Each structure stands twice: as C-alpha cells, then as structure tokens.
C-alpha cells in the first residue's frame, strides 16, 4: 500500500462526493443546497488539482484536465452565488439557485470522469 496513492484517491473521490452532495435535491430549492458544501467541494477540488500537477503521462494529463474543468465549473457556480447574494437586487432567488446547481452538475460530471480514470488506472496496474 502506498500512502501517496491513498491521499490521491481520497481527494479525488472526496471531491466527487462533496460535489454530488451539493448537487442532489430540487434544483431551485435553496434549502436543499448548503453553501458550506459548495465551499468544501471547491477547496477539495483545488487540492486534488494541485496533487495532479507534474505527472507527464497521458493519463496524468487527462486527470489534470478533468480537475481543471471541475474547478472552473465550481468557481463559476460560487461566483454566481456571490453575485446573487451580494450584488443582484433580488437576492438568492430559486432561479439563481438553479443556475448554481446546474453549474455544479457540470463539475460533477467532470469529477465522475476523474473517478472513472482513477478506477481504470487502478485496474490496469493489477498490483
């Protein structure tokens, strides 16, 4: 067992689970989507991205790409939320919540791809 692999797998899966946790629920109901969960998803996703730095293999490159996509989507979601809460006159309306959640849904897809690659890589090595 390799501690580095454990940490790597842990962060990738955690990023996906947190993202999923934020995503589930009615798409426009603010009470189904906790903002703290979105925050945790962003932080874990960023850390997972940095962990993927510096791997020059083909799989490493795809890993990094999926993480970057997830980061982009999650940060966009956070910015929409920030705009809704602080800038727009209407506040956090169901419409805005739907936007935030749908963006995080996109990130969830990227995270699922990331997890799929992780599993594929593990199966490929057979060790």
């Amino acid at each position: 067992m390799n501690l580095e692999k454990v940490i790597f797998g842990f962060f990738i899966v955690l990023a996906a689970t947190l993202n999923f946790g934020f995503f589930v629920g009615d798409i426009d109901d603010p009470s189904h989507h906790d903002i703290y969960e979105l925050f945790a998803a962003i932080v874990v996703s960023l850390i997972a991205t940095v962990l993927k730095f510096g791997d020059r293999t083909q799989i490493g490159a795809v890993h990094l790409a999926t993480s970057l996509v997830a980061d982009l989507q999650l940060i966009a979601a956070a910015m929409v939320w920030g705009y809704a809460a602080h800038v727009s006159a209407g506040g956090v309306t169901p419409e805005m919540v739907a936007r935030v959640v749908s963006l995080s849904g996109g990130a969830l897809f990227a995270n699922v791809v990331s997890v799929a690659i992780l599993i594929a890589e593990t199966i490929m090595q057979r060790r």
Partner: protein
Amino acid sequence: MTPLLRHHSIIFLIMRRLRAPLILLISILAVSVLGLTLAPGVDDEGKVHYLSFFHALYFMSYTATTIGFGEIPYAFSDQQRLWVTLCIYLSVIGWAYSVGTVFALLADRSLQLAIRTHRFLRAVKRLREPFYLVCGYGETGRLICSALDQLGYRAVVVECDEVKAGEIDLHSYRADVPTMCADARNPDLLQFAGLTHPYCIGVIALTNDDSANLAIAIAARLLAPKIPALCRAETPETAANMASFGTRYIINPFEKFAEYLSLALHAPAAWHLLTWLTGLPGTTIERERDPPPGGWIVCGHGRFGRVLVQAMEQESAVSITIIDREPSDDPHHRWVQGDGTGAAALEQAGVREAAGIIAGTGNDVDNLSIAVTARELNPALFVILRQNHYANHSLFEAYDSDVDVVPSEIIAHECLAILTTPLLVPFLNEVKRRDEPWCAALLDRLTGRFGWQVPSVWSERISFTQAPALHHKLMHGATIALREILRAPSNRDDELACEVLYLHRDDDDHLLLPDPDTEIRAGDELLLVGRQEARHEFDLTLSNEHALTYVLSGRDLPGGWLWEKFSRDPVASPAPHER
C-alpha cells in the same frame, strides 16, 4: 554530467515541486475563510451577523496578501478578531514557505540545467542558416569559432568543461553561439546539438581527448554521413581508427607541421604561399627567413620529435642530431643522451656548426631554455619552438624565435582551409607539385598586389542557387570570359581586387591560374583570392542581374518588368538568342 534531456517541459518540473506549498496555501485560505464565516459578529443594529463566504474570502484575500483594507462590512467582534489574529500568522507562514520554495527551486542546479538545456535545444532548432557543430572549446575551438564568426558562419558549441563553456558568453561574437555544457561523446546529445539538423554543414571534433574525438567521428559517420567531419587525432592509432570508417579529414597537428617543415626546407616559396593563403583571417603574415639546409638538432624525441625526424629524413641536404634524456632508440641518427637545456649536451651535438634547432619537448619552460641557451652558443641558429600551452604565449612572443609551433593554431588553419574553401586543398596540392621559381613568382605577384595581410580566399560555384544572374545568362547561350566579370559593379573600368587561382569543371577538368580570356561555363567552380570588399562586389555581380549587365555591357537595365517590356534595348531584355 549528462543534461536532463527528458525535461523538455520545465513547467512540469516546477509544478511538481510547487505541489506542497500550493496545497498548504489552499488549505490555510480555506480554513481561514471557513472560520470567518462561523465566527459571530455584530452589525450596526446590535444583532448577530455572520460574514458570508463572499465577504470572508474578500477579507482573507487582502489580509493574507498584507494589503489590509480594514474590517468589513461591520467592525469585527472580539471572537472574529481572535480568529483573524490566528489567520494572519497562519497565512504569513504559508506565504513564507511558498516563496522560500520558489526561490530554492530557481536556485536549484538541476532546474537551471534543465532551463539551459531547453534554451540550447530551442536555439539550435531555430537556426535557419548554415552552421558548424564545434565539439570542444579549448584553444583551437576558440580560434575556429572566432574565425567562423568573422567569416559570417554560425557555430554551435558542445564543451564538457563548465568554465570554458562559460567563456563563450564573455567572448563578444557577432552572432549568438548556442553552447551546451555536456560530454560530446553522447550521440543523443550530438543530435540535440544539431548533428542531424538540415542546416548543419560540418562537424569539428577538437576535444583534447582522442577517444572523444573518435566517438564524435563515429557518430557523425553513422548519423550524418553526408556532412564533412573534421577530427583532431594526436596518435597514429586514433587516426588509423578514424580512417578505417571513412572519416574524410583527420588532422594531426604534429604531422601537419612536419609536412610544412619539410616543404619549407626544400621549397620555401611554396611554404610561404601556403601560410599566406591559409592564415587566420585578419592577421598579417610576417615573412620569416627560410629554414636553411645543413645540420639540424632535434631536442626531444617524443611524439612531435619522431614525426619531424621522419619528415626531415626525406630532405637530402639535412643531417639530424637528436638530443634526448632517454638512451638511443633510433640507430639511424646521431644521438646525444643528455639534457638539451644545458650547454654541455648542445655542444656535444655540435650546436656551433648547426644550421637550426628544434626545441620540441613537451615542456614549455624546457623548450624556451633550450632555445635561449642554443642562441647564446650560436646566434645565427634557426630556432623552431614548440609551444604546448596557450597560457605561455606571452613568453613565446617575447622570445624572437623563427617559427613557433602552436598545435592549436595549426589545427585551426587546417580546419578553416578545408571548411570554408574546399577547392583550396587541390590547389595547394597542385602548388606543392610545381617547382620553386614558379611558386616564388606567384607569391611575389600576389603579395605585391594584395600585401602580406592574410587575404580572403573563397570558392564560387556558377550554379543556379549561388550565381543566379550569371547562370541565367550562361544558360541562354552567352559566352563570357573571366576577364569580363572580374570588374567592379560600381565602375566597370576598375578591376576587382581579386584573382582566380583555380577553376574546377564538372567533367574533372581543372585549370591552375586560368587565363583571363578563359570562357566560363555553368557548373564551374572558382577559387578566388583577394580582398574582402572584392568578394562582396563579386557576389553582387554574380547574383544581381542589373549589376551583371552593367559589368558586361556598361548599360544600366531599366528596373521593373514594365520598363523592361517597354524598353526596346536588345541588351536589356534577356532574349534566348542573345549573342
């Protein structure tokens, strides 16, 4: 030291090293922001108020980067201030660690090496003009690089000594010389340095290690068989080995000098002509006195002495005496066992009656000592001094010897002659076959016209690429004599300050010193000698149609297609049936 050839992308190396500090920074920021959103504050109406993520992130961003805009949106409560105090220290630690890592990374030798290698590879890859690959930047390498630079060729250098490689940056070359500090024995590295680059026109192996030169010769032969490889070889075994797989140019400085010396002994004029034509560009040849026949003393029977004795044996007017510390191993010559630096051994060898002495030991101080002692005993002596190390050159300059043998210069001369003017070698071979008065007359005529300064010697090929204008005219049936094009394009009444030494035709025919009335044909190769300005003017005549027409006929062509159409001048339009 092998460079990190696989680190083609330095960015990955940096990213990998920055993983830990980046994760630390993200974690610290995340913990701080989370804490701020959880710490209770008070708004201006006295109600409990929590910072939103947006405000918390905004606050932490300017606090962690030490900008500090103050407490927003309301003044903080004590709980919040407690947490912020902790956050400030945490973020300072995080930044200090990150910045420290970045600086350590920049100072890291392996990263610097990777960056240098990367830059070198890119510089070589981007070369879009002919260049020579020079392996070994010692004394010879320096001479060759500066001569190539003066002649307008680019060079790429591979040198294993970091100090010598660093010198290249200090040396002010006109063109940039990409340099890699690495062992040239590695064939991969030679490829990266441009051995297989389409613009590489020659490899020059000049390291002071024969086995390295051999390795370079093999790599050049197998990886780039079409380009010429010039290799320095100091032992006959290496030379034989190089020759066995077809290295075309093997340069042994001692043999080369022995060849020159024997030429100088029987044909001084040919020797002077040769040194004048193959000198380093920009230098002036001083006409020394000719080595006299008679008794010669050779001090030191090492690699150099042995080769010289062999060469001088051929000359009938020369008798040789050898002085060496070792007992005799050459029964055919008079041998004095002793120390050439002392008067006793020199007297015993007959220095007072001798015509010349060769101080050829491997030790510079010994050589100077031999020369000084011998001159004291016999002031008329012709002295040939071998200089082993460039560092001693001021001593050798101060002592007025007749000939200084500097191996690095000999190699440099030979390389330049082979590389820049391939026709020079057949010309010189032809010269060596001619008799002495012929050479003397040619030397007098040429130096009378161009002076003793080393002239520009160059080859021109009358081909579509190198002489488009002339080639075009010749292909349309014009007959042009040499005399007609050797005129200045600025004023055709002036003759160009250059002369054709040798003319080579495709059908293996060649003319030595062709007559001015000789007709030029397409495909001819000319060897010219003359001034640098004449070379530029001649190049203009060969490549520019207007200049050529003016030189041939004295008429100025109307510029542009339209004017040429309108012009009814038959000379102006290059008609197929011209003349």
